[in-house]
């Protein structure tokens, strides 16, 4: 449809007001503007988060709170979030990372949305604002059921992983700027594994079967391959221009192994 208005509210409350009136939320525009440009946006009003004061990043006492309108570049440059930098560098290009936002990444369809995969592994919490007030929700819920009409994700919050417990690996068609064939993000703690997968279902998913299988076991090529095979029960892969569903499922164990043992072949 032809766009009739672009709102640029300057507070979270004003965002909620515009959103509740039916405007489509837009972070950096990397997903919404292509629809506008091709005349295929299903709305007539856009609500930009660019000036809503939602782009702050705070890291203290082992907890990170990232405003939903923070760009991927800002996250990647924050000294307190260095562990995420390699993951962010696998997402799009530096130019697009100057525009794409953390909040927007939660709502892009797979095989995009690698930061959402990270947030799922980190068991992040989303801070939401809506016409009915503020609430919090696990990122897993936001990824699976979305948010209510008029609601907006204001920030995401998660505990920083202990040093050495964070694992990330993304298989792509090219070394840079390519969507996921398979993305693996994981936090390990005391023999317990939280493993999130991207590129393998319409939304990021937890590899619960792999987590169960690995619990209390050492990470060896054999145990990881077994876990990767088990994780096929947790996925719903799709065909696209990057890879076939068959291929994605086929190589999942390889990339799960590489996420933990990058040196293994």
């Amino acid at each position: 449809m032809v766009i009739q208005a672009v709102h640029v509210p300057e507070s979270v409350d004003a965002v909620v007001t515009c959103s509740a009136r039916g405007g489509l939320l837009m972070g950096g525009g990397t997903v919404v503007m292509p629809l506008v440009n091709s005349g295929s946006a299903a709305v007539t009003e856009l609500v930009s988060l660019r000036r809503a004061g939602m782009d702050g990043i705070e890291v203290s006492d082992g907890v990170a709170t990232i405003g939903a309108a923070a760009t991927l570049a800002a996250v990647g440059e924050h000294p307190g979030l260095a562990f995420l930098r390699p993951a962010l560098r696998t997402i799009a290009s530096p130019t697009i990372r100057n525009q794409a936002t953390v909040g927007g990444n939660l709502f892009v369809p797979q095989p995009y949305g690698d930061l959402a995969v990270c947030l799922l592994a980190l068991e992040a919490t989303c801070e939401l604002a809506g016409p009915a007030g503020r609430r919090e929700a696990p990122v897993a819920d936001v990824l699976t059921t979305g948010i209510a009409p008029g609601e907006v994700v204001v920030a995401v919050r998660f505990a920083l992983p202990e040093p050495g417990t964070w694992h990330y690996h993304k298989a792509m068609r090219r070394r840079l700027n390519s969507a996921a064939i398979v993305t693996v993000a994981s936090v390990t703690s005391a023999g317990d594994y939280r493993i999130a997968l991207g590129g393998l279902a319409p939304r990021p998913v937890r590899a619960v079967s792999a987590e169960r299988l690995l619990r209390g076991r050492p990470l060896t090529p054999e145990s990881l391959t077994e876990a990767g095979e088990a994780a096929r029960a947790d996925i719903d892969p799709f065909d696209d221009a990057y890879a076939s569903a068959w291929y994605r499922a086929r190589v999942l164990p390889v990339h799960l192994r590489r996420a933990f043992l990058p040196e293994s072949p």
Partner: protein
Amino acid sequence: MPSQIVSLDVNGERREFIAAPGATLLACLRESLGLTAAKRGCAQGACGTCTVLVDGRPEAACLVAVETVAGSAIRTLEGVATGGDLDEVQSAFIDCFATQCGFCTPGMIMVAEALLDRDPDPSEADVIEAISGNVCRCTGYRPIVIAILEAARRRRERAVTR
């Protein structure tokens, strides 16, 4: 909501124009301000030829609804040369045969400007990453990477001799 008057600082000059709702920064630069260096290649952020600097950072101008950057400082390829004097990136692109059809060149140069502003001595890998959002179908990229490294060298050299 009717069209709005939008004000931008473009290449150091304050410019005002009327923008229809949803107009992109790219469309406004090209159609309202006559700055046609930035190109429309895909209108979806995938090709990079519309890249301009917004407050010093490269952004795909086709993805920016212009109302959202009102008041920002925009730098385009038209603002790179001083008078008739090309800067180091521009001259290195010529000398290293980094242009063929020329359609990706505006975006490539703006990305290179932003990179060299931030890092005067980038590695080859840094350059390749910086231009990873810019598609070139003619050169195979190698002359462009060489040109940007050469531009960095020339700029460092000039900084020393000053």
